[in-house]
């Protein structure tokens, strides 16, 4: 191995270690047969069992799932439309308007949504306000993914559909939608993972009622970092990981198929 190769490898290993060792420790201690996160005693599944008996944690998980599903559904619907609009109408201001909430500091978004809900809409904070808030910051992500997919596609495919007798609606249903579907699904999965573990915006918009998973975890570790927290974190990590991998593979496979077509056209 050459000198520069060794450097490159060590840098890579260190970076990945930095990224994954903390996560690995969380996973490891979720199986540790000890109440303290200090030393390894032995393997157990008891923390996962304890989780099943923790009614408040289960309620928080259920609430978070409902929020993530509703928010990702509405964000996907609106974000897909936004992505299509940005692609079709070459208005320069449109993408800026849609993508800005993605880059905006979460705390800012949280505060402004809180004020908006309380002072403008006069809404009682709860599940509905959280769903609306999560939808807001997920729309941009979906729009970015859908638009990226459209940009890689040959525009004449859509013209061809019209040319061969399809109405605008038929063109959308039979050609556009199937072609952007991988991006739509990827956007939905992305929104789900963003929503289920969001803390800052949820914190500002949740009100006092229902327990929400990330907030619940935070409340628990304020008392003590029990292995139960490790267990719920591990489960959350697993869910997120599966969804992200799925989203990536979907996009990669779909673009591989359309790319080969684009190349032939050149």
């Amino acid at each position, binding site marked *: 191995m050459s000198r520069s190769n060794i450097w490159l490898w060590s840098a890579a290993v260190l970076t990945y270690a930095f990224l994954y060792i903390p996560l690995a420790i969380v996973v490891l201690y979720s199986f540790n047969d000890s109440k303290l996160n200090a030393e390894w005693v032995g393997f157990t599944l008891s923390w996962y069992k304890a989780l099943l008996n923790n009614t408040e944690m289960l309620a928080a998980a259920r609430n978070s799932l409902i929020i993530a599903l509703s928010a990702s559904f509405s964000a996907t619907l609106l974000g897909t439309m936004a992505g299509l609009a940005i692609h079709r109408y070459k208005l320069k201001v449109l993408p800026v308007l849609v993508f800005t909430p993605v880059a905006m500091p979460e705390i800012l978004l949280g505060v402004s949504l809180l004020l908006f809900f309380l002072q403008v809409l006069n809404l009682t904070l709860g599940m509905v306000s959280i769903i609306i808030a999560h939808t807001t910051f997920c729309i941009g992500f979906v729009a970015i993914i859908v638009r990226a997919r459209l940009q890689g596609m040959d525009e004449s495919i859509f013209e061809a559909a019209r*040319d061969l007798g399809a109405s605008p609606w038929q063109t959308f249903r039979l050609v556009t939608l199937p072609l952007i579907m991988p991006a739509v699904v990827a956007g939905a999965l992305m929104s789900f993972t963003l929503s289920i573990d969001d803390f800052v915006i949820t914190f500002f918009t949740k009100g006092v009622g229902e327990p929400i998973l990330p907030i619940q975890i935070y409340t628990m570790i304020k008392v003590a970092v029990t292995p139960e927290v490790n267990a719920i974190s591990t489960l959350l990590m697993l869910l997120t990981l599966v969804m992200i991998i799925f989203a990536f593979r979907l996009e990669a496979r779909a673009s591989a198929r359309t790319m080969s077509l684009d190349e032939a056209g050149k």
Partner: protein
Amino acid sequence: MALLEIRNVTRRFSNYTAVDNVSVSVKAGEFFTLLGPSGCGKTTLLRMIAGFDLPDSGQILLDGTDMVGTPPEKRPVHTVFQTYALFPHMTVADNIAFPLKMAGKTPQEIKARVGEALDSVRLPNFGSRFPHELSGGQKQRVAFARGLVNRPRLLLLDEPLGALDAKLREEMQIELINLQKELGITFVFVTHAQDEALALSHRIAVMNRGNVEQIDEPSRIYSFPRNRFVADFIGKISMMNAHVVEAAPSYLKLDVKDLGEVMAAGNAGVKVGDNGVMAIRPEQVRISHPSGEPHLKNHFLGKVHDFLYVGDVTTYIVELSNGTYIEALLPNSAPGRATFFEVGDQVGVSWRHDAGIFLND
């Protein structure tokens, strides 16, 4: 009555006029080509026929009905796109079935017609493949089949052979001619490749800067270009400034500055005193040793300036005594011989009295 009649169509974009008051009529069963350099308006015109773009003024009549305002899906016109535009998520059979489904044909009819279409483009067993599993030529054939399967009144082809390599391109040209002949469907073909236009078309409209310069059969476009643009765009041609000194129905006598008298083909539109150019195709010019007998009317001496050997023929660029250049084509029919003349050789060039043409300024 013409199948397609384009009447005074103009299309302006913000800073230029893409199509400028163009009128063209295409007969039923014709293979009609719009030929011109990029930016000449040929694709804009095609898109207006298909319905993807609307003229600012003028009419586009199909079978006597104005199509302007009719959306693309309602026009009995299909397009073969430069990029093929096959639907990547559908099989070949579903791609070809698409226009039939949109037209509301029964499943039995669709199945039969798709089978026929696949046979006609020699891809009988390709129905279940996806576009990304096909080669360029195969995609091209599927695109033809999809465009033709519902028997449109008119098939528009937007540089469909542009992405193919030279050999495949020639094969597809022959297939295209045969398909058109068999089905009798009217083709409007857009290309910037003049050799392709000459080989395929019944008639060609040569376009330049949004205008139609000439509409004629390929041989007439080549032999009797109406102006300098057409002469220059189609094939190779040498031009020299000339002045008409005698005009008869069967011949013209021209004066080329510092060279002398040149005889050219008669042209009714030309009168004595006109200024313009004498134009001559390289294959009409003979090149010989300077001592050779001048048995053609137009005979001049010059010197080989350069030559281009391309295998079957060699093009010699000869500098005449007045400093202008003329190209002469020599077929390499003598075996084993690479060149007949070298750069700097004194040569004679000659051409028939009716081979050159005069083009007004």
